[in-house]
C-alpha cells in the first residue's frame, strides 16, 4: 500500500502551497498520473478517501490527467503506446525499448480559496 504514502505526499505538497498562498481551503487539485507510474488507481482511491479527512483537501474536487505510457524502439525509432515494460515494438517486434512518457506522478495545480 505505497499509495497511502503517495497520497500523504500529495496532501503535504498541496497544503504547503495552499498555506504559502494564505488560502483557507483547497477546492480543486489537478494531478498528472502516468499509466506506468506504479500507482494502482483503486488503491489510490481507497487511500485518498481515508487520508484527506480533516485536511485542507477535505472537500476538494480531484482532477486526474491520465498520461498514456509511450516507448521508443531502440532499433527502428518507432514510438508506440505500451501497457507493460515487456511490450514489443509493433513494427519490428524488438523488446529493446525505452519509456518516453507514462511515469509521471505530479501535482500540477490547485484552485484555492
Amino acid at each position, binding site marked *: *500500500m505505497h499509495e497511502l504514502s503517495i497520497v500523504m*505526499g500529495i496532501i*503535504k505538497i498541496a497544503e504547503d502551497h495552499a498555506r504559502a*498562498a494564505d488560502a483557507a481551503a483547497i477546492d480543486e487539485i489537478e494531478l498528472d498520473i502516468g499509466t506506468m507510474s506504479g500507482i494502482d488507481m483503486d488503491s489510490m482511491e481507497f487511500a485518498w478517501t481515508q487520508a484527506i479527512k480533516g485536511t485542507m483537501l477535505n472537500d476538494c474536487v480531484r482532477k486526474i490527467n491520465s498520461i498514456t505510457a509511450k516507448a521508443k524502439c531502440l532499433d527502428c525509432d518507432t514510438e508506440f503506446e505500451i501497457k507493460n515494460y515487456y511490450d514489443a515494438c509493433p513494427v519490428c517486434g524488438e523488446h529493446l525499448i525505452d519509456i518516453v512518457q507514462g511515469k509521471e*506522478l*505530479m501535482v500540477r*495545480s490547485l*484552485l*484555492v*480559496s
Partner: protein
Amino acid sequence: MCATCGCSSDGKTTYYLVDKDQPHSHDHSHPHDHVHPHDHGHTHDHPHASEKKIIDVEQDVLHQNNLLAERNRGYFDAKNILALNLVSSPGSGKTSLLERTLKDLKGELEFAVIEGDQQTNNDADRIFATGTKVTQINTGKGCHLDAHMILHAMQGLKPKDNSVLFIENVGNLVCPAMFDLGEKERVVIISVTEGDDKPLKYPDMFHSSTLCIINKTDLLPYVPFDIEKAKANAKKVNHHLDIIEVSCTTGDGLPLWYNWLKSKVMQPEAV
C-alpha cells in the same frame, strides 16, 4: 508521525544499532531538529479573502523523497561509499546472500549493513554475527524503506570511507521500486522456488534494478522453474539488466557476484 513518510502513520519507525557491549534497542521518538530541504519555486502574491485562485504547483509527488535520496547520494559520493539497495519478495535469500558475502569477502572489502523489516531484529543479529556493523530499521506497518529512514539510520551507523553499504529493503516487490534511497545500484533477488514469470508480474522492480540475482539454484532439480525463461522475461522488462545465478547454500555462482561487486567498488584516487 514523520511528515515525510506517510506509510508509518500509526506504527512508528525505530532504529537499532547493534552494539556488541550492550545490545539495546533505542526508540528514537524521531526528533526533527533538522530541516529537510524543500524549495518552492513559486512566488507568493497577496490574495484577497475568499477569492479563488489557481496555483501552479508542478511538483513531483516523490519530490521530498528524491531530495533526501540525493542528499544521501551526496554523502555516499563524498565518502566513496558504494550503496546497494537489495530488494526481493520475503524469503528469496537477501540476508543469506549478505551473510555469505560478508564472511567470504571479510578482509578484502569494508562493509556496513542497514536491515529493513517491519518487525524484529533477527536479520540484524544474523549480520552482526558475521562481525559487521549493522543498523536495523523496523518500519512497523511500513512496507518499504524510504530515503528519510536511510538518512536517520546513517546517523548511528556511520559507515567508513570506501566501504560497501548493503541496504536490505523490506521484503516486497511492489512499492520499494518507487522509493529511491540514494543507492548506486539496485539489486533484485528472486529464487527458483518462485515463478519464472516473476519479472513479468512485478516489472517495476526489474525495470529499476541493474542486477538480478537468481538464488537457490541448488533446488533447480526439484522445482518446475525454467531458468532460461526467467532470464528472458527479466530481459524483456529491462534490457540493461545483468543476471547472475547463485546458490547461497552451496556457494555456486557466488564468485560471479563477488566479481560484479568488486567491479562496482571505486578505488579511492591515489594522491
